[in-house]
């Protein structure tokens, strides 16, 4: 065993980019011998005639391994090549020393007919330049350089791969062919072929470990996604595969691989969903029926796939409560006919202080309810969420506190923020939960057309959980359905204002969704009862403030 290792690795060691050399050797130093040994063992366990068959058909080494259901980090070993396979198989056959014929050129010039070069790390980049990486590690280096160039600060990553559908088609053809040819052999009965690894997973196996080393963090479930999308020009497109009583039907469109007709529609991409659909279709096919549908041997591939590398962070959320001190600030950006309504918006003040510090692409503002532009939001504040898309950096706790201080110290003091912090997706459900049931508390400045009497204070205070009926207010009737809404006024309290007999402060607590202004002036009788109808006079509202939004989320801990 020990003899076989050294010769092979030295002979097969391919020339590498000097830039990446030190990195690669660092990776390989520790694992070199173990890895090659493991590879050796694995390959020895494969049926050699089947492997040779596949090699002769134009299937690359990694595809062979994955067809046989091999898993794990073995895919990232740079020593993988047809020569290794050949030499191991050569040993099996002759039981002698390695035949010198096996020391061939290691460069796999021909693109794998099965994976179109994807597992040979051969592709066209976004500038249409063909690229061939010598090893999984080289490709990982290219990816990690992109991550660093774009300035992402990460503590984990998840790899997502998407491949053209034709690969699944090819796989099916290969499997059928193997089943027909070797179906009766004992090793086939064990069912290794049914446990084939998909090309996507094989690529992930290849890249995961080198990337973990280069990016210095773990791969797995993460909010940072590295997406590799492979597409192939003018390959066959499987429109739909239907299984009927008669057998399989397939509608084929597009050109075959050989004729590169420029007039045909360009790249055909595939998403995970499409893959699943194609796979399901294939599963249902009858074996004997599909001999007409699938070509074997596989067509030669002349062009590599086009690869798009995309790094993306899933949205991050900032939760907190906001206060609005101004009567000229809307909650969200409000523009009519190119003119802004109000001086500013809560959304923009808060969002513009958060997004740049995360180096995000953009932000979205969500709040638990809203108030009019001329209504102040006071007291404990209103819960809100700022969703930042594709943040390149995630601020630390201390940094988030700094953002809060910055907003609260703005010169114009229009808006304030409390309890700002990064929250997970649960912040969303917290906000939406029970939004309709939550109570809100207000203070309204009310004028009535006659002097206030002591008995009025009592008649108002005595009303508990009073039900009112509100027709959709005229001021919003142009954009809302005309409905009668039943709302509850939980309690009310009149506070006299010194120096005035007809003005007073009305404190009240109501069900979410109650129109307070209409409750005071009655909206031409369309809200009843109203303050005016209860007190038997005309009532007008001059100012309104929200003093409490009774919700449990984003409170001071």
């Amino acid at each position: 065993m020990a003899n076989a290792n050294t010769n092979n690795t030295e002979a097969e060691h391919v020339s590498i980019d000097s830039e990446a050399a030190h990195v690669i050797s660092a990776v390989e130093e520790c694992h070199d011998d173990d890895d090659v040994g493991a590879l050796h063992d694995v390959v020895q366990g494969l049926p050699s005639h089947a492997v040779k068959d596949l090699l002769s058909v134009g299937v690359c080494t990694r595809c062979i391994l994955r067809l046989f259901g091999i898993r794990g980090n073995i895919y990232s070993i740079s020593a993988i090549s047809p020569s290794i396979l050949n030499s191991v198989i050569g040993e099996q056959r002759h039981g002698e020393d390695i035949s010198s014929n096996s020391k061939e050129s290691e460069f796999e010039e021909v693109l794998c007919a099965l994976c179109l070069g994807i597992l040979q790390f051969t592709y066209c980049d976004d500038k249409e330049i063909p690229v061939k990486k010598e090893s999984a590690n080289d490709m990982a280096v290219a990816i990690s350089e992109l991550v660093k160039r774009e300035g992402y600060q990460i503590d984990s990553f998840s790899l997502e791969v998407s491949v053209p559908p034709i690969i699944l088609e090819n796989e099916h053809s290969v499997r059928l062919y193997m089943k027909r040819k070797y179906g009766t052999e004992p090793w086939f009965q064990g069912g290794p072929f049914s446990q084939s690894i998909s090309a996507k997973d094989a690529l992930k196996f290849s890249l995961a470990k080198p990337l973990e080393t280069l990016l210095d963090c773990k791969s797995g479930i993460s909010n940072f996604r590295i997406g590799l999308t492979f597409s192939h020009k003018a390959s066959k497109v499987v429109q739909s595969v239907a299984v009927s009583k008669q057998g399989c039907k397939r509608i084929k469109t597009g050109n075959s691989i050989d004729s590169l007709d420029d007039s045909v529609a360009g790249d055909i991409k595939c998403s995970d969903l499409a893959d699943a659909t194609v796979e399901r279709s294939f599963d249902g096919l009858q074996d004997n029926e599909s001999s007409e549908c699938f070509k074997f041997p596989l067509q030669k591939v002349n062009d590599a796939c086009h690869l798009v590398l995309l790094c993306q962070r899933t949205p991050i959320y900032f939760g907190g409560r906001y206060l609005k001190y101004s009567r000229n600030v809307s909650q969200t950006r409000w523009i009519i006919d190119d003119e802004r309504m109000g001086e500013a918006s809560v959304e923009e003040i808060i969002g513009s202080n958060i997004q740049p510090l995360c180096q995000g692409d953009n932000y979205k503002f969500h709040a638990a309810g809203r108030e009019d532009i001329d209504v102040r939001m006071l007291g404990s504040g209103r819960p809100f969420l700022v969703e930042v898309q594709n943040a390149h950096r995630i601020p630390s706790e201390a940094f988030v506190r700094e953002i809060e201080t910055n907003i609260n110290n703005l010169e114009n003091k229009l808006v304030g923020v409390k309890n700002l912090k990064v929250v997970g997706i649960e912040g969303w459900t917290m906000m939406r939960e029970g939004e309709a049931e939550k109570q809100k508390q207000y203070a309204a400045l009310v004028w009535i057309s006659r002097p206030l009497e002591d008995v009025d204070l009592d008649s108002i205070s005595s009303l508990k959980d009073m039900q009112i009926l509100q027709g959709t207010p005229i001021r919003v009737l142009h954009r809302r359905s005309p409905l009668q809404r039943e709302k509850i006024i939980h309690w009310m309290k009149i506070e006299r204002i010194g120096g005035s007999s007809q003005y007073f402060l009305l404190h009240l607590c109501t069900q979410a969704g109650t129109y307070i202004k209409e409750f005071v002036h009655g909206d031409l009788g369309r809200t009843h009862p109203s303050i005016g109808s209860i007190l038997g006079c005309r009532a007008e509202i001059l100012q309104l403030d929200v003093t409490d939004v009774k919700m449990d989320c984003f409170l001071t801990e």
Partner: protein
Amino acid sequence: MKDHSVDHTINLEHEQEQEQDSLHRILVPDVRDLPLTPPSAIESNFVSYFAPDFTKPGHDQYVYRHANGLCVIGLARTHVAFKDTSGITAVDFNVGKSDRSGIKVTGKRKKNAQHFESNSALCKVNTDDASYIVRCCVKGSLLEVNDRLIKQPGLLNSLIEKDTLLLSCQNQQIGSKSRGRYWALKSIRN
């Protein structure tokens, strides 16, 4: 040994009290800033139009138009119907081809809203002696009528604004081309 939890609770309560006080200070207005009589909700939110002698002498009506294009149409105080000593005794929305009070308008797009011209009849108001037809005054789609007037026609007599509205109507064209004989675009104070 000090009981820190008690101290902490006291501090928290004190803090909350302070917050309440400062909140209260913001809420209470300076009386000197308050007008003696504030503008009414109608004055603040609508532009009032007065249509005297609409189609007939003495048939004075008003239209309040909101910034969002909706109009409220009603009988002006000077309408000849109010001159009858009995006041208004009945309101009937069943005029023309349909009963206006029966139309149900639904949804944001206001499905089923009937389209009216400015001289379409909206309803009839009856006194002991006579009957007067009330017309739309503006071109638009009828959204709702004040059906409380069917059971309580006396509300109109009270002349309290909130009770005299007859109906609201969505209108896009008020103020354009309507400077006809029956139309005076004049803003009034009630």
